[in-house]
């Protein structure tokens, strides 16, 4: 540990616990905070306290929210009949950035991972099944990752939703835009061929 006052050491230690930040970067950030105008540093500290105190999960979709219902669930302009099921709030944010999707979400808060002992009961799947009827959902879009665990989760959910009669779709898997077919792996190419669309 570097030789500096105890409070700074604590800060450096906390910062180096963040993902992708080693001790060198932590020291650099700590020095930056020390030299920052006091208001800026205080705002950073307060914002960390705020997210932990004020942000919890939306009652309906389990996205992060600072009120009972998140801004998407309470937005009347969003189609209430379509649900996009994602693994994490990070995935939700990525889809939101496209500004292309106008329905609502359901955040599972994880993915079925048998090898890690994570099963359906540890995710928000039961809550999803209940929403179908209560919220009169017409379509569920399964947007879990195209991994073995993501597929297992999508397959499990579609099994659970079968009796409800709701329309279930899975996001397409295929060639990324700007990609080069010659360099794309065979699993992706196979999926791209299977999921081909007629040109009109």
């Amino acid at each position, binding site marked *: 540990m570097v030789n500096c006052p105890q409070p700074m050491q604590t800060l450096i230690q906390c910062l180096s616990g963040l993902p992708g930040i080693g001790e060198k970067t932590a020291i650099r950030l700590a020095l930056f905070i020390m030299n920052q105008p006091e208001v800026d540093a205080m705002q950073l500290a307060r914002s960390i306290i705020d997210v932990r105190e004020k942000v919890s999960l939306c009652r309906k979709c389990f996205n992060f929210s600072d009120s009972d219902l998140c801004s998407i669930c309470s937005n009347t302009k969003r189609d209430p009949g379509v649900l996009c099921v994602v693994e994490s709030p990070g995935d939700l944010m990525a889809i939101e950035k496209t500004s292309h999707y106008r329905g609502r979400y359901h955040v599972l808060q994880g993915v079925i991972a048998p*090898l890690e002992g994570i099963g359906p009961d540890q995710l928000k799947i039961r809550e999803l099944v209940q929403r179908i009827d209560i919220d009169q959902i017409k379509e569920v879009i399964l947007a879990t990752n195209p991994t073995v665990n993501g597929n*297992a989760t999508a397959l499990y959910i579609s099994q659970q939703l079968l009796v409800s009669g709701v329309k279930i779709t899975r996001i397409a898997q295929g060639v990324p835009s700007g990609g080069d077919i010659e360099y794309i792996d065979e699993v992706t190419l*196979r999926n791209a061929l299977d999921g081909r669309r007629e040109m009109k």
Partner: protein
Amino acid sequence: MPFFKSEAVVLQATDYAEYDKIVSLYTKNYGRIKGIARGAKRSQKRFGGALEPFTCNEVDFFEKEGHGLARLESCRILNPYTAISQDINKIAYGNYLLELVNILTPEREKHPEVFRLLLFFLNLLSEQSPREEILRIFELRLTSLLGYQPQFLQCVSCGQSFRLQEDYRFSIKKGGILCSGCHKGNQAFLSLSHGTIKLFQQVQQVSLVKLNRIRFSPASRGEGKAILLNFLEYHIGKKPKSLEFIEHLKQ
């Protein structure tokens, strides 16, 4: 830095730090290897879907001396086993096969027969509708290859060979059948029928290609599951994690 090349099945891959993945592989030439795939989490370019469980690859890796963690250089997919990842029961059963190999095999001990067994069962799972008894067959064969198979040919206490007129029970601790003179009707030992004993003898002895023809009676399915799962749990010291999902799907 020595450089290696082998066929390998991905047993498990977990995210590590911000960009990397720690991958457990069962390789044909070097046994079970733990490796790090740099940048695998962030970029799809280098490894693509090659690090997904079940995938059989040709892998290239470097050995950094003294680290115990190989560095994965590249993967070329030989078989992605997509048929497994499109069926929930196949995923559940397949994960269990991978987990058993991951827990039971020693690290860096070459055992091409284990590799061949794993591929054989992944092919079976991929081509046929999933049956739970193939898990029992896999358990029996894998433990045999690794040298601590449960004993069904003779009483593990007195050594007397299996006889039809004898009543047997199974001792988890001793890892085999006990004759009536040795189990003395003690209910602490699991009971098992002659049918199951003979079936398991057969499973342990026939060639790999003939395994697929073996079918279990409902009684053997029940007895086999109780005996083998308890036997494995005793050896491993814990319950394999992936069993829970298999049980969940049956509810």
